[in-house]
């Protein structure tokens, strides 16, 4: 945190902040030094190149000897019809270069020699014969240093990846998670020793983890920094493989921290691994025996191409049989893992689709392979070891396909038609799709649907909406945006970029946030016309809202999300699956207020405090002052009406800001900042430790300052401390901004700033008896509290009016809203300085500005690879939804973590069936009640079903609750009138019904969830 310390110039943190949050600086630097070869520039090559160029490697070399065919346009987002006939590598350069100017992109268009591979740290082949692959891999494996070799193919609905990172590859970080920590409560003198931790948070240690100890008092032998092994890991304790019998007796304190261990992997070269593949990475337990079969299938395809010089033809029974016989031959001659039986039906599908590269498969594997290249270049995350096979045959139409339906029709969708048939293609083109959100997921989805031809027919219509504008930090993964688009509407820019990928796309871009307020835009007609909704959102509330709308209009919803290297997808299909809101993650735990206010024990607590102080000082108080200045009379009367403690507090802050702490010159701002420092980091701590001395005991005699509480010590200000000086600089600059005072250049010179700070006279502080700790000391001592609130407020308003007279006419303050993504605005400087000074008070390790920004700015880590994969997986499901008629077991929900790597696919959960008497229903059902009923009639109607309604609501308004006697008066009123009057329902003439939510009990007083009830009133 040294003053003027810049970040090394090699990382553009504004551009890469979301990715830095995943990888960290070290990994990014290694990436920036890496040269990568991508051979084969069809759909898969293009996706891999996109992901790596966005990530920011040093150079990408594209190799392809072939030329663009119309067939390629089913999966390659770079090419258009005009590129047909050009060399694939050459035709790709310009558009890829636009994604990131700092990556050097070059091409190779002639046959590769293995010697050329020595220019690269990693090489990727997406279209290579096994014979050639073995030769290249051998060279890479034995090269000094080894070159990481990746071979990947997507053939129809089948895909494969093989990795060989050399004989001894070191992984620095096997999972990408922060080291786990615990706060110690006790350690026994025993063999083995038992370590107990406070029960605030569950421990995440596993047996065999290595940990180090620090700050242990009493048993100081453990503080030597030596890693020790955990055993018997439990939620709040673990054992140490160590005899502590003769160590000092544990007194208090101590933190235990996991030490992450590097891991060395011994990769086998391709030649050996083909024969003895070892364990395959599984993706779906319902397909546990599929990987060995696909291992054979890809080898058989290679043999087919070698012998016939072409791919099998879609729908050709003869070609399929030939491929199957190759597979059988290879199986018969294999020595390890020979298969008992070969699934001929599956190999049929494999043969038929072999020539096609499908966009969703390319998107998914582009993500997987892109991540493997990052691992190869950086040692971050665990590599795929070594084979991965995947298929999505469930995406095929449910009925058998007629070979004539698979024939090319000389269109850009020919490859896709060869797999799914022209009938499904037509359905895709005529679909009406709503994509909600145009961020990272949205951009990828737009590319995918454009390439698949979804909404590209005459009947088709794609609506995309997003109310956000493009920021620089978006550009490292939202690949439809360029730097000249910064500040423009996301949806508009993305839509026109998507239309240039496929000019047939019928797309409308809107800037409305999907929420109850925009139901006039997204009205009933809009919803009723949709075929499917695709969520591309970044927050749970919006997802829940769209989920409710889809539930209401009975529309399929394809949901996905990413977090760093992790992604998940969830299919919500009317009547087949549960809805999105049916199962939810527990919300994130927030630190209790008292912890944040006075007893922080980690940097998150300090940062939460810092953000709230920032907001109070620079945003809320100036806004309060302005509220007064704009209209003093109205303000005063509002305060008098409120008449409560909150109003008084606001007034006091405003007065303080305009009176005692008013700044007129920059020197005033420095004084203010210096005194704030004294108040925050010295006086308040002195007061707190005066009220609760280090040896204070609670009522039952236990020490007050026991774990997890940490005893604070005041800071002594020194101009020689760069962190402290930095605090004064950031605070005074921002203070000056709120007062509209020009900021002199000299403030950025530490010497001159130090001079100015030294001039500030700091009064001595004496702790007071009986003052409050948590809120400001100035707030309420009992004597003032006992005075009538109204009188105090009157007095304060008079004071405020007096202050106003001293201000220049038209004076206003400039409230500052926290903006995390501008590196030059001093916001994060102040917040990280506030948090770090507080951390110093409590001897909590400090963090750098970048880390502070991730935590305080709640920056969600995000990378292009996992996003691309999520959208690929969703689009494999889109084929099923738009075809229709699939069973629930054909659909797949996925959870994946590219860091491990882990793929876990499973059938969606069916909706919960509720049974009552002889009825049953699910969340997808709705009850209908006609004839414009009264409240009494509705209650009776439910009574007849054995249901006792106790609460009826319309939207968020309560129409009836049995708890309120007064609501009984509403019994004989028409429900529609109650909805209009109390619920403020607007029911235009075209509306014939509205919906109410009813809470019911059965006769045994058990709550019964019943469907929404539609009340028809016309």
């Amino acid at each position: 945190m040294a003053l003027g310390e810049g970040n090394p110039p090699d990382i553009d943190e504004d551009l890469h902040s979301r990715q830095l949050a995943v990888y960290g600086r070290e990994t990014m630097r290694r990436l920036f030094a890496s040269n990568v070869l991508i051979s084969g520039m069809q759909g898969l090559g293009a996706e891999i190149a996109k992901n790596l160029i966005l990530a920011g490697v040093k150079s990408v070399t594209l190799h392809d000897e072939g030329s663009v065919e119309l067939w390629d346009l089913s999966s390659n987002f770079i090419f258009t019809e005009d590129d047909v006939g050009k060399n694939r590598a050459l035709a790709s350069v310009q558009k890829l270069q636009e994604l990131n100017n700092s990556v050097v992109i070059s091409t190779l268009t002639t046959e590769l020699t293995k010697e050329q591979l020595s220019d690269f740290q990693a090489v990727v082949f997406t279209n290579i014969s096994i014979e050639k692959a073995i030769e290249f891999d051998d060279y890479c494996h034995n090269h000094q240093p080894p070159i990481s070799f990746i071979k990947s193919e997507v053939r129809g609905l089948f895909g494969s990846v093989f990795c060989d990172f050399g004989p001894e590859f070191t992984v620095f970080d096997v999972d990408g998670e922060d080291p786990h920590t615990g706060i110690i409560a006790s350690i026994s003198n025993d063999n083995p020793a038992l370590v107990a931790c406070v029960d605030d948070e569950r421990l995440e240690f596993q047996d065999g983890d290595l940990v180090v100890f620090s700050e242990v008092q009493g048993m100081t032998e453990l503080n030597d920094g030596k890693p020790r092994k955990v055993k018997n890991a439990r939620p709040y304790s673990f054992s140490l493989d160590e005899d502590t019998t003769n160590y000092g007796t544990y007194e208090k304190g101590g933190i235990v921290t996991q030490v992450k261990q590097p891991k060395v992997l011994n990769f086998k070269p391709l030649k050996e691994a083909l024969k003895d593949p070892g364990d395959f990475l599984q993706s779906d337990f319902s397909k546990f025996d599929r990987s060995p079969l696909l291992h054979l299938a890809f080898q058989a395809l290679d043999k087919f191409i070698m012998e016939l010089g072409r791919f099998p033809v879609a729908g050709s029974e003869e070609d399929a049989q030939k491929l199957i016989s190759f597979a059988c031959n290879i199986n018969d001659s294999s020595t390890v893992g020979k298969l008992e039986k070969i699934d001929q039906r599956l190999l049929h599908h494999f043969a038929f689709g072999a020539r096609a590269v499908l966009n969703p498969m390319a998107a998914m594997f582009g993500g997987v392979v892109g991540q493997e290249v990052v691992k190869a270049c950086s040692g971050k995350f665990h590599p795929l070891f070594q084979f991965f096979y995947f298929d999505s045959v469930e995406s095929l139409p449910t009925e058998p396909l007629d070979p004539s339906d698979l024939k090319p029709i000389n269109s850009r969708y020919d490859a896709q038609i060869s797999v799914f048939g022209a009938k499904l293609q037509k359905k895709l083109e005529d679909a009406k799709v709503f994509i909600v959100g145009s961020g990272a997921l949205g951009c990828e989805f737009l590319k995918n649907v454009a390439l698949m031809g979804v909404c590209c027919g005459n009947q088709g219509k794609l609506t995309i909406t997003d109310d956000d504008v493009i920021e620089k930090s978006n550009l490292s993964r939202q690949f439809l945006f360029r730097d000249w688009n910064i500040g423009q509407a996301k949806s508009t820019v993305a839509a026109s970029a998507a239309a240039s990928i496929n000019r047939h796309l019928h797309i409308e871009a809107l800037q409305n946030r999907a929420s109850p307020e925009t139901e006039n835009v997204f009205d009933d007609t809009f919803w009723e016309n949709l075929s499917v909704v695709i969520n591309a959102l970044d927050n749970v509330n919006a997802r829940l809202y769209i989920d409710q709308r889809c539930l209401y209009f009975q529309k399929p919803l394809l949901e996905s999300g990413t977090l760093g290297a992790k992604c998940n997808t969830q299919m919500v299909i009317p009547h087949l699956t549960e809805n999105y809101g049916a199962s939810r993650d527990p919300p994130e735990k927030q630190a209790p207020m008292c912890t944040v206010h006075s007893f922080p024990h980690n940097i998150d607590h300090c940062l939460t405090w810092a953000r709230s102080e920032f907001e109070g000082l620079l945003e809320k108080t100036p806004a309060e002052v302005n509220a007064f200045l704009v209209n003093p009379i109205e303000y005063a009367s509002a305060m008098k009406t409120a008449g409560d403690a909150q109003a008084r507090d606001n007034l006091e802050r405003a007065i303080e800001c305009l009176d005692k702490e008013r700044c007129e010159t920059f020197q005033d701002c420095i004084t203010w900042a210096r005194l704030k420092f004294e108040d925050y980091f010295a006086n308040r701590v002195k007061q707190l430790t005066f009220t609760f001395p280090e040896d204070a005991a609670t009522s039952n005699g236990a020490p007050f300052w026991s774990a997890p509480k940490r005893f604070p010590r005041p800071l002594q200000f020194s101009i020689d401390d760069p962190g402290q000086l930095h605090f004064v600089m950031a605070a005074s600059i921002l203070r000056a901004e709120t007062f509209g005072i020009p900021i002199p250049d000299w403030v950025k010179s530490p010497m001159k700033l130090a001079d100015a700070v030294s001039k500030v006279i700091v009064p001595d502080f004496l702790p007071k008896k009986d003052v409050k700790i948590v809120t400001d000391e100035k707030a309420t001592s009992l004597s003032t509290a006992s005075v009538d609130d109204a009188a105090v407020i009157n007095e304060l308003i008079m004071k405020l009016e007096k202050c106003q007279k001293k201000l220049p006419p038209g004076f206003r303050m400039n409230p500052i809203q926290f903006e995390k993504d501008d590196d030059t605005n001093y916001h994060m400087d102040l917040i990280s300085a506030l948090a770090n000074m507080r951390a110093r008070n409590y001897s909590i390790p400090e963090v750098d500005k970048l880390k502070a920004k991730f935590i305080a700015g709640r920056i969600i880590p995000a990378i292009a690879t996992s996003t691309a994969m999520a959208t690929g997986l969703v689009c494999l499901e889109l084929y099923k939804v738009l075809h229709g008629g699939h069973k629930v077991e054909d659909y797949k929900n996925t959870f994946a973590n590219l860091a491990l790597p882990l793929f876990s696919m499973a059938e969606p959960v069916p909706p919960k069936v509720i049974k009552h008497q002889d009825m049953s229903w699910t969340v997808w059902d709705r009850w209908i009640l006609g004839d414009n009923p009264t409240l009494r009639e509705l209650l009776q109607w439910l009574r007849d079903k054995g249901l006792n309604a106790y609460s009826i609501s319309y939207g968020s308004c309560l129409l009836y609750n049995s708890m309120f006697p007064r609501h009984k008066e509403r019994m004989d009123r028409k429900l529609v009138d109650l909805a209009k009057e109390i619920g403020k329902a607007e029911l235009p003439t075209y509306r014939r019904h509205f919906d109410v939510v009813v809470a019911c009990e059965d006769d045994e007083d058990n709550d019964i969830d019943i469907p929404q009830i539609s009340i028809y009133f016309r």
Partner: protein
Amino acid sequence: MMSDYKVEMINDGMQEFYVHFHGPSDSPYHGGVWRIRVELPDAYPYKSPSIGFVNKIYHPNVDEMSGSVCLDVINQTWSPMFDLVNVFEVFLPQLLLYPNPSDPLNGEAAALMMRDRTAYEQRVKEYCEKYAKPEDVGAAPEEKSSDEEELSEDEYDSSDEAVAGQADP
């Protein structure tokens, strides 16, 4: 059921309301009545309700100024299985019966309780007398609404903004 409690709705809405809460009889808070502002977040019951004392209370775990409760059971260990009624039948009575001065939000109250229990209880009673008499909660913060039954409807419009600000500091 919450029907055993006196509840005031805000605007017929279902997410914010007040509940009248009586100090438990074996505690120095006996005789005091508080209006508790309850706000159900969008994610309720997955997220805990937010609870605040509207009239003043002297208590180590309640912020004197804002009325916010620093109650571990509510903020930290809330589970969707808890019923709202538990807040009033279990959590709040426990809080008033057994304050936890080791996690104070009102440090002065905590320190006083640890040092001089009698003086602390005296102070609690003074506050009850001053701020938590039944008539203090009977009337809404403003003078104009006198009839409680009427609070549930439109007249309340203008006031709920101002009251809404109180619970969350």
